[in-house]
């Protein structure tokens, strides 16, 4: 995973996007159990390994917007 400075703006952007996900969705990533959106948001806020993974996934998507399949 790329190492980059995670600013407060990036964290807020990622959290805003996560808040649009249905509450009954669960994410499996890494070796963790399935997580609720609220738990994922906590992980992002606290910048845990999983939180950083979620941030990286969101940023990867945003950077890829110009190359999306259509």
């Amino acid at each position, binding site marked *: 995973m790329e190492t980059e400075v995670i600013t407060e703006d990036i964290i807020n952007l990622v959290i805003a996007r996560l808040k649009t996900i249905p509450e009954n*969705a669960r994410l*499996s990533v890494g070796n963790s159990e399935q997580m609720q959106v609220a738990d994922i948001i906590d992980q992002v806020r606290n910048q845990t390994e999983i939180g950083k993974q979620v941030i990286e996934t969101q940023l990867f998507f945003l950077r890829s917007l110009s190359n999306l399949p259509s």
Partner: protein
Amino acid sequence: MYLLVTRPKHDSVTHYLYYWAGLLVDEAKKKGLRVIDLEKTKATKKKLESYLKKQQPDTLIFNGHGSPDCITGHNNETLIEANGNAEILKDKVVYMRSCESGKVLGPISIKHGAKAFIGYDEPYQFWTQEDAIREPLKDPLAKPFLTTSNQIGISLIKGKTPKEAHADSVAVYKKEIARLLQSDAENTFLVMALMWNMQHQVCLAQK
């Protein structure tokens, strides 16, 4: 083809992989292929090594938790480790549906003579729906993730090469992503993790 599949089922993640890998076992049997199904508690290092030594399947599909240098089975027991027993993958075509094993274990297995290795060089992610855990095959959130990764196994079972199987999977990823990006599509948020998995799916092979 002689196929070996590991599919433990000891937590919520492996619960999903267990059922979706079961479709590959069914498909292979339907095609008349020989299949060793190391399901649930059978997904142990001892059984794996024993089957590889005595029966010599040529294609291995692993499902479970992983890390850059290992793949695990039942109760997260290490089945194959980069600096341990990776030589048992010699002459095999390998697909690991797990986190990160494409980072170190993949290249090491090729060094030890594996014919090909398909896996992920970053954490593999998928979404599920809370009320669908009893029927993982019908989970609308999990389906795009496990259909795209299952395509690798389906293509291998059809006799395609590892590179073709990888390409077939990427094609299904692109189709799913395009479908989810349509203006009337539900669950567009799935696209992010799908793109992540697609980008980090690696196919390594002997030169």
